[in-house]
């Protein structure tokens, strides 16, 4: 498998570490309540099809990435920098 890091270009999978679902980016407000925090921390979809994951380019530039890919075809549709998000 290969990912195209927006900073470094196309690289082998060995440079990256899988870090879970991209929903970890949607951090609830501290006052959002236990249900929202429980869902944020523990509840995950398991789709057959398009999914969004976090990957860390630890053996490259150190960027956290959102990878949109297909769990059925293994096609990688997009790789985006977490840092480029409009947040924080």
């Amino acid at each position: 498998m290969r990912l195209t890091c927006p900073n470094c270009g196309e690289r082998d999978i060995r440079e990256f570490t899988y870090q879970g679902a991209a929903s970890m980016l949607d951090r609830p407000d501290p006052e959002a309540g236990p249900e929202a925090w429980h869902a944020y921390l523990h509840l995950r979809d398991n789709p057959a099809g398009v999914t969004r994951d976090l990957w860390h380019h630890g053996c490259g530039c150190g960027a956290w990435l959102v990878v949109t890919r297909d769990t059925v075809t293994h096609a990688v549709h997009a790789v985006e920098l977490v840092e480029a998000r409009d947040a924080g």
Partner: protein
Amino acid sequence: MRVEGKGRIDRGAPLRFTFDGHTHTGFEGDTLASALMADGVRLMGRSFKYHRPRGVTTAGSEEPNALVTIGSGARQDPNIRATTQELYDGLEARSQNRWPSLGFDVMGINDLAAPFLGAGFYYKTFMWPKAFWEKLYEPVIRRAAGIGALSGEAPGDKHEKAFAFCDVLVIGGGAAGLMAALAAARSGAQVILCEEDRACGGRLLAEVEEVDGQPGADWAAALEQQLRDMENVRVMTRCSVTGAYDQGTYGALERVAHHVGDPKGAPVECFWRIHAKRAVLCAGALERPIAFRDNDRPGVMMAGAMRAYLNRWGVVPGKALAVFGNNDNAHRTARDLQEAGVHVAALIDSRADAPNLAGDVPYYAGAQVSRAFGRQGLEAIQIRLPNGKVERLQVQGLGVSGGWNPSVHLSCHMNTRPVWDDGIAAFVPGKDAVPGMSVAGAARGRFSTAACLQDGAEAGQVAASALGFVAEVPQVPEAEDAPYRLRRLWTVPGKGRAWLDFQNDVTVKDVTQAAQENFRSVEHMKRYTTQGMAPDQGKNSNIGALAVLADATGRDIPETGTTTYRPPFVPVSIAAIGAGAEGKGYAPERFTTSHDASVSAKAPMIEAGLWYRPSYVPRDGEKTWRQSCDREVAMVREHVGICDVSTLGKIELQGPDVGQFLDFIYVNGFSSLKPGKVRYGLMLREDGTVMDDGTCARLDDNTWLMTTTTAAAGQVMTHLDWAQQAFCNKLQMRFVSATEQWAQFAVAGPKSRDLLNALLDAPIDDASLPYMGCVSVTVGGIAARLFRISFSGEHAYEIAVPARYGASLFDHLVALAEERGGGAYGMEALNVLRIEKGFVTHAEINGTATAFDLGYGRMISPKKDCIGKVMAARPGLVGEGRQQLVGLRPVSAIKEMPAGAHLFDDGAEPVRENDQGYVTSTCFSPTLGEVRALALVRNGRARHGEVLRLVDHLRGVDMRCEVTDPVAFDPEGGRLRG
């Protein structure tokens, strides 16, 4: 035996080798199989389950029978296919799975017990009594079944792994592959051509036919050379592409020096990961057998293989040979043998209406071979004539052809199923099976040479064009274009055992029986009978077994379906895949700048992650580690000690918003920290448990230095990357790891400031550097950082210099310490010092402990949010039910309190239900003169003074101890500030 005038071997270059201790001679260009056949050796191995005598069946990597062990000792290499092992002078080969000898094998008795060893026998025979399975059945089965064995020694041969990149990867260098490579290469694309054999050509090396008016093999050699001469082409022979993976990644095994006696330092094998923008699969096709009674006798082989042995190596398996097939292609074998002057006793074609294409040979149309005779080698065959009568014919070799199966394997590696083609009665690759890969030639059922050449040329052109290269279809040379005609025939009916899977000993009856017992799904049949589960992965038997299953279940073949094709296409040794990842390649060593000094001082070095740190630094007269450790602890408590703490993670942060960032990272506030000050910080995971702890210093307004524990340095760095990029990307700040840039040493003990003042260019005092302060200093003109922090509870400092000065500074510090009654101390003393003070490490920060558990609950600032804060407050992570950090001191005659021991109420039975917690760290405290421990105990903070029962079931310890405050020494901290 050799056939004069045939073969592409160098008869002027004899090579001596041994097989089972007997010396033989072959020639340059031979494989082990062809050289053995030349010397009349037909028996080359014993089968997996029944230990039946077996001989060579194919001429390629799909070989199921002729598996041998090459070499001995550390270089012993088992399960090598004699058909692909090139001969070299001095080669030592041994047969496998036989005892005492290949000719007389005691376990051959299994063959007589065959009625009890049929399909599913594992599941039926060895059910009862249950206890016998592990002790008796499994060891016996494992010894009896199986193939070659490993030596048990570390590999004596070098292996390598490598990466390669190209525009177009051509898999297979036969007629189609050569043309595909040529078409792509002429467009300027970067091309890699992988060919499993020692030379390109594929079937052209094994056939008598002309391409472009010259012998096919010569044409292939010339084109291979032409490609090698192009600088944008890399021709990799002896290289099998083993798997197709995501995003155009392919695995390939190159046999770099497997074909020479002395590798001269070269790796025997190299495992390649090739990334290709486009690939063309030209893997050719594999011939399939027809099952009939005892069709596994040595001497029975594929018709195409028999032709290859004749045409390429000039060998045949005997004086009188016969050929049996259901297609036109089989006739070529009889024709070539006849033309080479070999006696062809019969050509048998199961099709009654098929004309004889082989010339002047005895021809049996509409007949079938129904039985083979001869135990250790074929002696005769039985032919069933169209009228039902049988005839017996003396032959030593029989070539069989049930047709050809395209090598679809790689096209199926990404889970696309192959498609049944009724015209050729075989599976062909599914459409767009692997993104970026096309298939050409025999691999997609184009069987004539002319069709392969044309198909390959077009596929190469399309692949290069798709990448934007201006590619043309090259002129395709003239070649053989005979039609491929066959009428399907999978098995010849009759009594006795007809073999489908030679390598795993599966018969037609086994598959039929599986169907009768309702293992009707092809995947169930496979697992029940073990068909296709041997190293050849069913290359020779899958389609035949499918056909039998389809017939037995009243379905057609496409409806029955295939099993899943998985990488690797050929066996790949773990040594090749894992090359470079053993020993230090698996766990590299990281050394501090004081490493040499510690080693010179005879300090035993222990691992801390990948780092090596001194356990203790022994002095003359000290006989045990405890003596050294106790002395080092006392040295720090009374004088001054030096310890290399460079292994702790150091992360330098810069920018005006670092304070705000650290507020979000640590549970306690940092933005209020003044320049020149250091603060202890605790960071949580988002689930509320403690991730790591350490100090963070504000060096000046915009520069901060965070330290992490040695173990968690990488994890914390990744965590900071995450928090900054995901949630704080508007903050003005950056950070970088500086762990290896700075050498840092603890200077601990009452005489530490005295020591430093003898070292520093300008002296320090309480006013210029109070407890938890930091300053820039110079040492001999070198800029250094000085922190007044302590992990020992003593008045202590840590001094950091650029790493290149580390070794020199360490020596200097130790010398100054020794002048003051101190010296270097190691990990054992460091651990004792911190246990006495109740400081935590990852023994306590165990992945389940919360800030509350460790007694740091109040550090969580109510004024701000931080990672983990919300979840740390949830029910269940705080309160009386939690195991909390406490100290322990012994109150019974037994003083030992081992780490890992569990705690119970005094008088309670020591069982899991009564568990109150466990010991996390333990030491003998020379300062207090007794054993002290830290523990996590249920509701522990409310239980100081209570006596608990401590039981270590592993070490047989059962004693009583008192729960205390975690801080056993200097609870007021007067020594820190003094």
